[in-house]
């Protein structure tokens, strides 16, 4: 026992890199508990995903490949995952805390009668999980007393697992669900297309808030982002105002990010935004209000009008970078 089973995410026949921090967690956890690191892949036509997943040092990759699992539905995937958890001797079932995992893992916890800890930052020698509560204003040591434990892992808190030699065992998971009896049907997925990298995967992020005053302000941010091939982020205020799509929101109720470099432009620094970005390695803030709380977390703060400072910054960086 003591095994850690990670639900890997994939898209278009490729493993999603968001899963790598959960692999790293599983190696740590299973190592400490004298168990093994296992991976579960669910979907249809999974050949290339399984090959990729077997390159991270898992003792076994469990494969549930079935036409009915093609479209993601929490109802079918939770049933399959609960079965795989029982069959694989898992103590902990986990995934990186993406939108899919937040939807799916509580349903698995219900099927297993397992306690669940969301969005964990780490765990201690007693096996208590550290997790943020009250928008990250506090961290609580959380004990799960059930034999099965379910957790989602905050991706920014674990270094992505590196590839090692391939060759882990593979095991097929028998899928015996009556897909026709499901009470939910997938209709379609409306993708938001972007030339830019995903927020959770970008090395540099340029984020804007209320101070950008609208779409025109965000166009300035685009120029800065172009230099770095950066992702664009936004505060809840900017998203609520409809200036940018909602999947760009960084914060407690949006995405958790930790890039090498984070530009906070026209952002005051509300608690819920800081919760999503304060693990960034270097934070630069530009805001005309010198009292803005964002300056309390920024490595470099510039009190200035962003509409003047950002164009100047673009020119100066271009000079330096050649």
């Amino acid at each position: 026992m003591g095994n850690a089973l990670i639900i890997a995410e994939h898209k278009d026949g490729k493993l999603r890199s968001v899963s790598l921090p959960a692999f790293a967690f599983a190696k740590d956890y299973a190592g400490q508990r004298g168990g093994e690191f296992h991976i579960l892949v669910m979907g249809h036509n999974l050949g290339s995903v399984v090959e990729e997943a077997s390159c991270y040092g898992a003792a076994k990759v469990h494969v549930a490949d079935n036409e009915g699992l093609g479209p993601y539905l929490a109802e079918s995937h939770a049933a399959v995952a609960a079965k795989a958890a029982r069959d694989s001797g898992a103590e902990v079932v986990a995934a990186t805390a993406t939108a899919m995992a937040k939807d799916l893992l509580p349903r698995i916890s219900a099927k297993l009668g397992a306690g669940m800890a969301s969005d964990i930052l780490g765990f201690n020698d007693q096996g208590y999980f550290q997790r943020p509560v009250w928008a990250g204003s506090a961290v609580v040591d959380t004990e799960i007393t059930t034999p099965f434990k379910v957790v989602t892992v905050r991706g920014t808190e674990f270094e992505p697992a590196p590839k090692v030699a391939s060759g882990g065992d593979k095991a097929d998971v028998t899928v015996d669900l009556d897909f026709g009896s499901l009470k939910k049907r997938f209709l379609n997925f409306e993708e938001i297309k972007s030339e830019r990298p995903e927020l959770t995967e970008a090395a540099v992020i340029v984020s804007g808030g209320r101070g950008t005053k609208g779409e025109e302000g965000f166009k300035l941010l685009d120029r800065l982002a172009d230099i770095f091939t950066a992702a664009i982020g936004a505060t809840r205020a900017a998203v609520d105002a409809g200036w940018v799509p909602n999947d760009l929101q960084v914060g407690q109720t949006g995405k958790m990010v930790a890039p090498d470099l984070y530009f906070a432009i026209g952002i005051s620094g509300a608690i819920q935004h800081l919760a999503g970005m304060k693990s960034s390695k270097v934070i630069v803030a530009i805001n005309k209000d010198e009292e803005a709380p964002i300056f309390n977390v920024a490595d470099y703060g510039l009190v200035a009008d962003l509409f003047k400072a950002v164009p100047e910054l673009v020119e100066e960086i271009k000079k330096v970078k050649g």
Partner: protein
Amino acid sequence: MKIFVTTKRVTDPDVKIKVKPDGSGIATEGIDYKVNPFDEIAVEEAIRINEKQGGEVVVVSIGSGASTKEVRSGLAMGAQRGILVKTDDYLDSLGTATVLKKIVDDEKPDLILMGKQAVDGDNNQVGQILADMLGYAQACFASKIELGDDQKTARVTREVDGGFDHVEVDLPAVITADLRLNEPRYASLPGIMKAKKKPINEMELSSLGLDTTPKVVWHKFSEPAERKAGIKVPDVPTLVSKLKDEAKVL
């Protein structure tokens, strides 16, 4: 159509929360309580559906006796009646869902609307767990809900990574509200006056005969690792030279 909508009394999300010096919990002295913001969105959606379809909106809450205030604020927005299961105990997500399942089994609503997460525990679990316990479909993180003409199904747009997931669920189902589902209304003065006379069925948790022993136990609370404030730079050229020579990110 009978709609259940759950609300939780939470600490004011706009107030900075501090941990008690002994790490036994968060310091609550002098802190205001409000309806969980995501639940307010769920209440608004329930009322909008009710205004079109008729029927009844029931606000359901679990908490201390003081939670009547938050139930009442849902009634002031337009819900018809309330149910409050009273307890001062800490319940985890499994315990909360166990209580809600009991109320659902007794009342048999056609639709259950919930906020996607409460902003105190930040778990984002109860809706999904309740749906599984009931054998219902779930549609979490909804930004749009359209009921079928026969009121037997609902089409839901879900906000997920990289776009929108469109699904159809059979009713009854559990749907959890994300931020952009709607803008909750303010209760009107007549609404507040009427709410005072609307019924709230209060019951003690201990009278329901349920096992709600927590499986998820909170031990020590601590302040998060604080990030140190850096420096202020006087102008853009200084900023760029710091980024290049000191932070080495250019």
